[in-house]
């Protein structure tokens, strides 16, 4: 399924990120994704294939935090926005106009990454263990 391909793309992007922006010792905690509702990505499937793909790798344990971006269209007749639906044939309910402009819903984006380096890992582990006491 294409979530496997999406995962491959995500892994490539993260590898490139580690090489270009972070350090080789970077350990990722959370990857924040924006996934639009008018894409062919299903967030739970993506989460599942991601966990399977990163097991045993430098990304093992990294979590995906996925924000689903609503599918919103703009009616070019009255400039109002609306939620296109198949039952409404994606037409604007205000003016019965076809879907000309998509305001949101096509996002497939890595928004940010929470990570730590080895030095911080030692410090943070200590901080966490102190909190538990």
């Amino acid at each position, binding site marked *: 399924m*294409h979530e496997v391909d999406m995962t491959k*793309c995500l892994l490539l992007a993260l590898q490139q990120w580690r090489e270009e922006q972070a350090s080789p010792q970077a350990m990722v905690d959370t990857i924040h994704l924006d*996934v639009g509702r008018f894409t*062919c990505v299903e967030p739970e499937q993506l989460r599942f294939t991601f966990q399977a793909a990163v097991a045993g790798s430098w990304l093992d344990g990294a979590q995906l935090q996925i924000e689903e971006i609503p599918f919103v269209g703009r009616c070019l007749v009255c400039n109002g926005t609306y939620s296109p639906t198949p039952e409404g044939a994606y037409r604007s309910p205000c003016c019965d106009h076809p879907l000309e402009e998509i305001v949101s819903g096509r996002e497939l984006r890595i928004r940010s990454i929470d990570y730590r380096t080895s030095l911080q890992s030692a410090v943070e582990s200590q901080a966490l263990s102190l909190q538990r006491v």
Partner: protein
Amino acid sequence: MHLPLEDRLGMNLLAANQHQAEHNREHFEAWQVLALNVMSSPGAGKTALLERSLPQLAQEWSMAVLEGDMTTQLDAERLEAVGIPVVPITTGRSCHLDAAMVSGGLKLLRERLNPNQLDLLWVENVGNLVCPAEFEVGEHHKVALLSVTEGEDKPLKYPLMFRQADVVLITKIDLLPYLPVELETFRRNINSINPKASVISVSALTGEGIDVWHAWLRSARQNTLEPALAMA
């Protein structure tokens, strides 16, 4: 540490595929080849359309086909019989072509011919109405096929495919007299999700509408590639 991604990385989940697609596109531009990504559900008539179109178009243009299929080379064999160079791409488990697969196909094509001599490249995608629309391969235009036997509601049920298409071909119109469907309903549903798409009704069997389709191709080639070279 919380780090927003730099814009340079594109922040796009599909950045790797997009990057390769742009690379493919650069090749097409350098070779002055119009690249078309042909998509539809299985059985809508992609291969039949090419079997009908290619012999006629071969009188005007030099063409080649990258033929995507999951596990067989059956479609590639059908098109080879027409006399056009065909490079089969078996995708294995993947239900769509991606830019890397097309890049691999182009390498194989270049072993057989000089791509500068090509006018048109057909990329026949895997039969699938869901995924291919999300994966650019470097094409100039996306061509979506919808057969009259699939039902008038398919543009509403698979909106992304029809939204992404530049042209939608309604195929198998020779069967209209036997079906409880209206061509106008197909057109309205396609228009609702994508008012910009050209819509052309065709029959690969009888040839009806094929001349309109070829006129669209001529116009696309003229308007898409560099006008100066198109006029040469």
